[in-house]
């Protein structure tokens, strides 16, 4: 273990920071029990009732009462979202209605039995995936689960109880939970409850129950649950300890487990996962490609093991290597693994033992600094043995093996004929060389097993036909015997050597093919003149390389894909497939065939992601309904990233082009507006300054006249300002520039600008008001217009009342006048429309003020509403704006 001084690991600091940030994700609380009947659902409901009393919006997604009245009583008062009925093979199955819950959007959802498997036709095959989606979309979830359903505990449970649990939940789900509460009773207590009939086990489980609920089993299960919770608590404590200057020891370990087609791999993976959890370190599962041909069944098992490892949280690594152990060592060095886990397998034959010992030695020497764990694989069960047998199927397919055998026999036969013809001339020793030549030449073409046959066949033929005494297998002379032995050995060795060479050559070719494909693909994308054509061509190439039909949907915006797939692909998805594609786009993870989500689709859908965005989704449907191999997936990933980069580039190019266009038109608009504004305002400015200068030295009579001019000027000024404001609003050029403002100050400025003259304005606000973030100019203009409107419509002696209130993040300004109220009583008059003037309103004004208020309110993300006052005549206008509120000052200020 690494005992070097503990410097803060940047990853940890980041992770700790992330934990502190308020996440938009919902919180998950898990009620964990050791087995059915401990009261998980009961405890969960108690807690939910408590939350409800505290005012939390709780709904029941799914809760199984199993007809028990105590539990049923606890559901009372909670809203239950009706379940969804699914017809499956003439029976109706009820499942939790995920979409209904998402639509209802409560704060907290109760979802019983996390490990439940959904009926076919549901969105996800597993309920825990439903829960994950709920959390992703920001809902809090309470759920229950028994410890035996945890993926990492499955083989332990099997060892303890002999029962194989099929409904499992990945540990990562519980790792992501914010809280785990252990619901615990003693095993004696549980057995009592069982005897009282308080535990419901389901009709089929009755038989198994007898075995399952044995005292010893219960104690073991309880220990598992307690231990699991304890580990979790330990982790939480460490996380809390790891403050900004946290110095809690944290291992820098990295575990690596070798994964092969052998069924033992599953146990190895689980063992490693448990170890990694205890060490709190990352781990990876490595599969080695030796270039040896692998049967379809083995390939599928490796894929299965790797996906199990991925579900359990491992990083998946595939490396090439001359043999498995070389590959493991290579991967361990490349990924800085500190501990390597391999299986201890039972071998009986002496040569197998020799081989295993030699390989282990090579691993121990080659692993350098890393520790090597050799883990005992538990005694395999019948099923495992069966699978293990099928695991050793002959590598070369039957027909090819036969053909190669015939080739070997024919070649040896021909050599024999030549030998018989030449025997009188050159003697039987030279003929041995002919045989050797044949063996070496054949080695270039044949695989291992036919070569073995060739070696044996040629040595025996030579012995039988040529070594004296001829036509017997008896060898009289020592040097003949030696020659016989040498010949057999040389044939064997050269056969093996060439086979290995060819294997490596095949690997290299494979790699070259992949590189060439990628290069061609990149070139296609980069060189094409028309981006659409490039994308179509790329999709066609993917089809050709994978041997599949493909469909590509490109993005429209962050929520939507294009309606039709790009025309390059041959795969025309139906409605259902499109729904999968949409889901993949939104969630950013693969779905469809051969995945965990919506697995009954035709195609596998991959999101095309770059760091910046998801630029589309790619659907791949293998032609012969086969499963995509690991290599194909890897290749698809590589091609997909290239395609994603190309699409992203195109997207940004288009965006830049669009921005340039808008920019040009905006500039034109702004120039026009600026010159009109200048032309209108300059004469007004001249008038005003001139009037002011005159006022100073005017006679009393002249002063009255000048005052008239000044007032007319002010009115004109207001109209010009309003017209320009409206034009600016409609041009869309108005962009709020937010800054911290003092509400009081803004209100006073607006009141000054509204030139209320004789009209009395009374503010009601609870001071001190905090600072808010808004656009001061826009806010002031809106309020000015609102106040001016109120002043215009009320009798001059009544005054206006303004009220400012700030609730959570909304600023509400209410302005009340004592005029005639809204025109047309409570019927909605188009008062916020441009050029609308209330019938009977005082002369003056264009009827633009309120439309400006509305426009500005909308530009600031808020709204304005009008109503008649409830207490006496007059109208009430309410301007509400979402604002950011300054809660406290940054430390550095004080």
């Amino acid at each position, binding site marked *: 273990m690494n005992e070097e001084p503990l410097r803060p690991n940047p990853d940890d600091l980041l992770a700790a920071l992330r934990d502190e940030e308020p996440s938009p994700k919902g919180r998950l609380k898990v009620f964990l029990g050791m087995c059915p009947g401990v009261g998980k659902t009961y405890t969960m409901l108690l807690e939910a009732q408590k939350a409800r009393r505290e005012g939390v919006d709780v709904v029941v997604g799914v809760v199984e009462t199993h007809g028990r009245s105590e539990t049923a009583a606890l559901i009372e008062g909670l809203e239950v979202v009706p379940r969804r009925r699914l017809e499956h093979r003439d029976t109706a199955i009820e499942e939790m209605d995920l979409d209904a819950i998402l639509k209802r959007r409560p704060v907290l959802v109760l979802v019983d039995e996390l490990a439940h498997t959904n009926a076919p036709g549901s969105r996800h095959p597993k309920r825990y995936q439903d829960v994950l989606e709920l959390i992703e979309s920001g809902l809090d979830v309470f759920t229950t689960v028994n410890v035996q359903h945890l993926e990492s505990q499955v083989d332990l449970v099997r060892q303890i109880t002999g029962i194989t649990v099929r409904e499992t939940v990945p540990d990562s789900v519980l790792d992501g939970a914010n809280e785990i509460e252990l619901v615990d009773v003693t095993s004696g207590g549980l057995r009592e409850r069982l005897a009282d009939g308080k535990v419901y086990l389901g009709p089929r489980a009755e038989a198994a129950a007898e075995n399952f609920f044995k005292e010893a089993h219960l104690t073991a299960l309880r220990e598992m649950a307690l231990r699991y919770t304890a580990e979790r608590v330990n982790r939480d404590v460490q996380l809390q300890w790891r403050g900004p200057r946290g110095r809690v020891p944290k291992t820098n370990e990295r575990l690596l487990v070798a994964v092969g087609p052998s069924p033992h791999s599953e146990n190895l993976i689980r063992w490693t996962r448990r170890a990694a959890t205890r060490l709190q370190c990352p781990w990876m599962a490595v599969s080695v490609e030796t270039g040896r041909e692998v049967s379809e069944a083995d390939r599928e098992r490796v894929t299965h093991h790797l996906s199990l490892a991925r579900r359990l949280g491992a990083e998946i690594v595939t490396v090439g290597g001359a043999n498995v152990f070389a590959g493991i060592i290579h991967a361990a060095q490349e990924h800085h693994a500190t501990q390597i886990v391999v299986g201890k397998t039972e071998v009986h034959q002496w040569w197998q033992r020799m081989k295993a010992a030699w390989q282990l030695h090579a691993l121990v020497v080659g692993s350098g600094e890393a520790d090597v764990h050799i883990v005992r694989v538990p005694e395999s069960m019948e099923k495992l043995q069966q699978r293990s047998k099928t695991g050793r199927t002959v590598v070369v397919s039957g027909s090819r093996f036969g053909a190669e055998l015939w080739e070997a026999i024919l070649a040896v036969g021909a050599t024999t004929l030549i030998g018989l013809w030449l025997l009188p001339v050159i003697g039987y020793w030279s003929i041995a060389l002919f045989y050797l030549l044949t063996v070496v030449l054949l080695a270039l073409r044949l695989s291992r097993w036919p070569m073995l046959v060739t070696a044996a066949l040629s040595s025996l033929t030579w012995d039988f036909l040529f070594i004296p005494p001829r036509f017997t297998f008896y060898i009289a002379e020592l040097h003949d015997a030696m020659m016989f032995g040498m010949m057999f050995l040389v044939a064997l060795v050269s056969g093996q050597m060439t086979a290995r060479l060819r294997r490596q050559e095949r690997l290299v070719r494979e790699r070259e093919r992949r590189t060439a494909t990628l290069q061609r693909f990149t070139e296609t994308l980069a060189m094409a003149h028309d981006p659409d054509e490039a994308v179509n061509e790329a999709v066609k190439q993917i089809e050709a390389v994978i041997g599949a039909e493909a469909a590509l949907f490109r993005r429209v915006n962050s929520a939507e894909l294009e309606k039709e797939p790009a025309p390059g692909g041959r795969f025309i998805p139906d409605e259902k497939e499109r729904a999968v594609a949409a889901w993949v786009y939104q969630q950013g993870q693969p779905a469809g065939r051969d995945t965990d989500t919506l697995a009954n689709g035709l195609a596998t859908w991959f999101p095309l992601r770059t760091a910046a965005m998801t630029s589309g989704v790619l659907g791949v449907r293998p032609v012969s309904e086969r499963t995509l191999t690991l290599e194909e997936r890897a290749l698809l990933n590589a091609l997909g990233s290239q395609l994603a980069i190309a699409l992203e580039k195109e997207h940004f190019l288009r965006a830049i082009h669009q921005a340039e266009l808008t920019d040009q038109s905006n500039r034109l608009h702004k120039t026009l507006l*600026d010159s009109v*504004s*200048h032309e209108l*305002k*300059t*004469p*007004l*400015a*001249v*008038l*005003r*300054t*001139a009037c*002011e*200068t005159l006022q*100073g030295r005017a006679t009393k009579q002249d002063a009255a006249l000048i005052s008239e001019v000044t007032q007319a000027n002010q009115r004109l*000024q207001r109209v010009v*300002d309003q017209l320009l404001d409206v034009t600016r609003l409609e041009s869309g050029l108005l962009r709020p*520039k937010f*800054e*911290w*403002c*003092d509400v009081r*100050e803004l209100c006073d*400025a607006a009141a000054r600008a509204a030139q209320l003259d004789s009209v009395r304005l009374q503010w009601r606000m609870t001071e*001190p008001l905090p*600072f808010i973030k808004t656009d*001061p*100019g826009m806010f*002031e203009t809106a309020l000015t217009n609102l106040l001016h409107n109120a002043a215009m419509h009320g009798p001059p002696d009544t005054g206006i009342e303004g009220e400012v209130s700030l609730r959570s993040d909304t600023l509400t300004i209410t302005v009340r006048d004592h005029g005639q109220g809204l025109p047309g009583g409570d019927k909605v008059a188009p008062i916020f429309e441009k050029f609308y003037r209330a019938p009977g309103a005082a002369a003056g004004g264009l009827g633009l003020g309120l439309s400006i208020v509305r426009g500005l309110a909308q530009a600031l993300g808020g709204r304005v509403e009008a109503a008649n006052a409830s207490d006496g005549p007059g109208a009430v206008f309410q301007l509400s704006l979402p604002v950011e509120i*300054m809660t406290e*000052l*940054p430390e*550095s*200020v004080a």
Partner: protein
Amino acid sequence: MTPHRTILMIDDEVQIRRLLRLTLEDAGWMVKESDSGARGLVEAAHWKPDAIILDLGLPDLDGLEVLRRLREWSSVPVLVLSVRDDESDKVAALDLGADDYLTKPFGAAELLARLRAIQRRHPDATEEPVFQTGDLRVDLTARVVQVQGAEVHLTANEYALLRILIRHAGKVVTQKQLLREVWGPNAEEHSQYLRVYFTHLRKKVDPQSTGLIQTEPRIGYRLVLG
């Protein structure tokens, strides 16, 4: 009144120029006009006026560009004229060294007050040890602040802000300048500090809310001389 104060007006609007000439000459200024930025720069170099009024919207050169070139060799006080809604231009002009700005339309009294303020040159050299306006009295040497004769206690930052405003009394001081001088160059973006501090400062030095310290939205603050 000193009859020989000279002022250069750079504005393309002939009417504005004529009007300003009347107003300014009335107030005892000697006025020169210039209708373009390029000519204005030449005039400024030859004539060396005591102050310059510069319109930001000029036909040939951008007003900001004129200012930039002018400031390369002259520190003459400059008052910038601009239209509403162009806060960014105003801030840019002040950053480039304009002494104050005025938004069209403006009154004659306002113009003359601004000109008086920017005329108060080299404040550090000529500053009185005691500053007084309205109810406020600040003894700059003893660091004592009094309002209506009663001493008011200010925090270090509040006093620093008030001190800057007094040094530029009557003139606008940009947010950036205040932040930089009080909190250092890293605080230039944090205009919210100013909001908070000025609220406190106003309560202390202007309890009657007479508008002693004016906020110029988006631009800065101004200490108004009574």
